[in-house]
């Protein structure tokens, strides 16, 4: 049975009215399949949010370490003036896992703000993609977005892909997108090792440092859980 794939296809819809604030946090560790990529969950999830009222806020935080394949793009439509959308994500893929995740921030109202922080970690034969859209409509004056999408590669058989779409049709919008893809710094690793931290622990520590901005957004008990999950999921990734 564990060689089969199971499908998980949930739908989540959030609506925030005036001055309302929703924080939605997910830590996902479904069965990822075995180390050869047999079995595992297909995690295809629809998540969307509407900031309908002025000064409303929707914040998505996710830590994705499980599932054979994850497709998930929590989105926010920023309709109310001064509304805020956030997306904080950590996605880790090891062995033959694939994660394709990101967000859509659609700025319609005035003075709307969105922040995107996405951290992808690929190990083994894992594939990680960030796919996102930031759209600023013609009436969304004084709207802002900041996106930071970083990918970390552990090993030479994995892959990282960053596909951000940015569509702006208002001159008073300010949109900034930054992305980096690197491996773990040799200097950082050596520094940790010189202080006596073994390679596996050093990598786990550096990876968690890499994800810190996102873990900070999780409720405390979740953050501890997420951290532990990351370490388990990374097991065997460093050789």
């Amino acid at each position: 049975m564990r060689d089969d794939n199971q499908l998980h296809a949930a739908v989540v819809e959030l609506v925030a009215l005036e001055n309302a604030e929703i924080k939605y946090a997910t830590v996902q560790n479904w069965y990822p399949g075995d180390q050869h990529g047999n079995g595992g969950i297909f995690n295809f999830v629809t998540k969307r949010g509407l900031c309908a009222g002025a000064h409303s806020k929707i914040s998505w935080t996710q830590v994705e370490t499980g599932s054979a394949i994850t497709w998930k793009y929590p989105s926010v439509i920023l309709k109310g003036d001064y509304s805020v959308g956030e997306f904080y994500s950590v996605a880790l893929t090891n062995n033959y896992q694939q994660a394709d995740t990101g967000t859509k921030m659609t700025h319609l109202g005035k003075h709307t703000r969105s922040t995107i922080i996405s951290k992808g970690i690929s190990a083994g034969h894992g594939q990680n993609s960030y796919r996102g859209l930031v759209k600023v409509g013609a009436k969304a004056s004084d709207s802002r977005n900041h996106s930071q999408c970083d990918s970390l590669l552990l090993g030479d058989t994995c892959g990282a892909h960053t596909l951000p779409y940015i569509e702006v049709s208002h001159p008073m919008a300010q949109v900034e997108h930054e992305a980096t893809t690197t491996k773990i710094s040799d200097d950082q690793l050596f520094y940790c090792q010189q202080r006596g931290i073994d390679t596996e622990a050093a990598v786990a520590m550096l990876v968690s440092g890499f994800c810190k901005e996102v873990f900070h957004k999780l409720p405390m008990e979740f953050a501890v859980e997420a951290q532990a999950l990351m370490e388990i999921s990374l097991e065997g990734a460093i050789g």
Partner: protein
Amino acid sequence: MTMAKRFCELQAHAPPNISGWPWLRAFRQQAQRAFAAQELPTLRQENWKYTNIRSLSETAFSDAPPPGAAELAQAENVQQTQALSLPGYRLTFIAGHFQPQLSQLETLSGAARLLPLKQAFEQEQALVENYLGSAMEYPGQPFAALNSARLEDGVLLYLPANCQLSQPIHCLFYTPSGPHSHVSYPRLLLMLEPGAQAQLIEEYLGDPVPPENAAAQFTCPLSEIILAHDAHLLHGKVLREGPQGHHIAGIHVSQAEQSHLHSISITLGGGICRNDLQVKLHARGAQVRLDGLYMLAGRQHLDNHLRIDHLQAGCRSEVLYKGIIDDRARGVFNGLAVVHPQAQQSDARQINKNLLLSENAEIDTKPELQIDADDVKCSHGATVGQLDKDALFYLGSRGMDQPTARALLTTAFALETLNPLSQGPLREQLAALTGTTLTRQAGGKPPATTSHS
């Protein structure tokens, strides 16, 4: 019926037939088949998501006839008053037809060659046959196939090992406006053998003030650039078509070990325009720097599509594209860096920055990274915004009025793309062109909201 078929049907003429060279006929026929096998791009295709060429594919463009006396005179005038004025070699074309009397060519010494492609078909058949089509692929590139099916003339540059041209080569393509819709397919074939060096500028010009009811014109150029070991090329492209001048161009580059390409692409005018710049870094130490500046106004549409393939270890690519978009114009930027599995120690950086100057302007930017090796340093950044408020305040505090301060900062924003160019007539004239365009943009209206870097 595919759009490709329709496109062919609308073109009254069959592909021109140059008799006597079966290989060329075969080359064209193969390209024609590759073109016919593809749909013309629509917005549903990822690579054409933001660029609608429907109006183009429904216009009956016919092959441009050789210029008459009036066009020749107009071309001469444009060349003297509008075009870049660079020392060195010049090849001038009117609607795709080479004009010896407006050109400045001399026979290069030794094995080096610089001549119109049509002439090269006769005189340098071995070279052409050997290299034509070698730096490009048809799949996913319908306009490269179209150009290959229809090509008739253009430029051939061949530099043997260690041949270093000190003077730039200026290729001027003038598209006259008129009541009929014409199309031309210039083809450039540039081969630099090991250690060779050159500078080549492609300039596309339309009439600055076209007559009323001027018909749409279409230019569909393709450049193939082949750089051998340690070859260095500075490639410039200046696009200043008129509002009815549509332009879909391909620049396909193949780079060997330690070769360097510096490309600077400046777009200041045109209708629906697209540049597909594709660079393949085939061997260790190959380096490419792609700089671009676009200043769009009116209803202009410009789509810059860049793709850099890091195929082997130790290559480096750097991209800086900047845009200032006004009126109802729309800019599209898509930069893709692909690091293939064996390409360790790749260094790929990409930056795209934009200023929107009007309520109706739009920018769609999509910087992409596709990484399949781990020992890499890759980054990209994209911004859309206004001028830095702190900088504006600082200049104000030094007594500068707002329009001046804005103009200063906007100019600085634009000129950053020219910084890597060495001092000389090219840089000076590009800077001057940029300046004039900015003044024109600022002139029409109160200097709007603007940008940041």
